[in-house]
């Protein structure tokens, strides 16, 4: 192999390594991909009643729910969450709390309410 060809091969290798490193780094710290969380307990995902009464936010082609200070989404029949909050979901969260539907007055305290763990939202939410 000539010096020129060898250098070209190294360049391509370096480029591939660099892009790979960029992707891994982005996934780990900024953009975040979904991953299961081994430390999660059995109940550490949105309860059924929460899913049934709360509007999701559609992000990356799937519905996501803000619950317990995390964004959860379902994939392959199980719940995952974003380890780091994606900027797009952060921006949506800052626009206001998710809307929840109240089906029966309960103890006189009914009406739309911010999702648990929500902060920075305005009363009322989107509709």
């Amino acid at each position, binding site marked *: 192999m000539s010096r020129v060809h060898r250098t070209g091969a*190294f360049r391509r290798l370096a480029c591939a390594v660099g892009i790979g490193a960029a992707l891994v780094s982005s996934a780990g710290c900024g953009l975040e991909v979904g991953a299961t969380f081994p430390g999660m307990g059995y109940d550490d995902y949105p309860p059924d009643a929460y899913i049934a009464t709360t509007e999701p936010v559609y992000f990356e082609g799937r519905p996501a729910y803000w619950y317990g200070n995390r964004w959860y989404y379902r994939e392959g029949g199980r719940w995952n969450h974003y380890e780091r909050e994606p900027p797009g979901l952060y921006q949506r969260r800052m626009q206001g709390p998710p809307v929840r539907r109240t089906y029966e007055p309960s103890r006189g305290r009914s009406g739309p309410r911010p999702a648990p763990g929500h902060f920075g939202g305005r009363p009322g939410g989107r509709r």
Partner: protein
Amino acid sequence: MESPCPRRTPSAEQDYRPPTWHMVATDMRGARMKILGISTLSKIGMVVMALVGAVPTVGCGGGAANAPPSATPAHAADVDDVAAGLMEHHRHHHHGGVTLIIALSLDTLGVSPEQRAAVEKIRSALHARMAPALNAEQELTAVLADGVAVGKFDPARVVAAIAQVSTAAAGVHAASTEALNELHATLTPPERAALVDKVEAHWSVWQKANAEESDPANPERDRLAMLATDLGLTQEQVDRIRASLHTKLKAVPQFDPKEVDAHLRAFGDAFRGNKFDAKTLGAANSANAHLAGWGAAQLASFIEAVSPVLTPDQRTEYVQKLREHALHNSSDGENP
């Protein structure tokens, strides 16, 4: 899990811009320009080092800027009022079976403004198709409320009213196929997936709400416990109701969720797909009749067990609550 990335202060968040591939490429070009005087292999190595080192810094800034706020209890929603209200709703409303669950799931689907009118029209159509079943359910509740009011039930009327709920529910799916097909055509794939998630969630809540035994995790959400709070029942009254209920529920055939489970699986698998035809869901009518009929029978047994132990004031209040349930229309799009 703690992130290795440093967190930024709230003031730094305001200046934050997410990293883009353009920024990464610019960094790459800059790194190469600074090392032009060094051998090619060294340049490559340094570029790689620069990329590996620089990109995580950019990425960490993005992640840290969106660090979650301080923790709150993860289980708060499990016992919140909205969840309790949904449980109560599922205890009293069974009329459309799975079709009712699908219609309820549309309430919080969160579709785009462009889709909203179309989805609302479909939701209204589904509730209209369920109207005969709703009327039957309202009639049953009225018959039961009459029984509570006078302290005596007419068994023939109760049985006939329960049967009518089941019969009416059996016709709901066949009447709703067009609306369901239109719904599938209207929703995007993520919205279809969200709908199926919600249908499954409602079904799970329905089963918990109508379980004979109380949920050990949430005993205060047990149907009888909630009624005790609402009506101010004494412990002795609760014990008498529970004993009577245990006997009465033996007369109600045990609910077998397999039929509904199978129908929901078939619906979910089909609805997530690109092609959907509600007419192919052959088990739907039977599942709806099973769910609605059993729910109606269980509701009747519960009310019949409660009635004999009530004081006059409690009786008056309970009758009023039942009549409110009978008039409650879940097709109302607004929060009650």
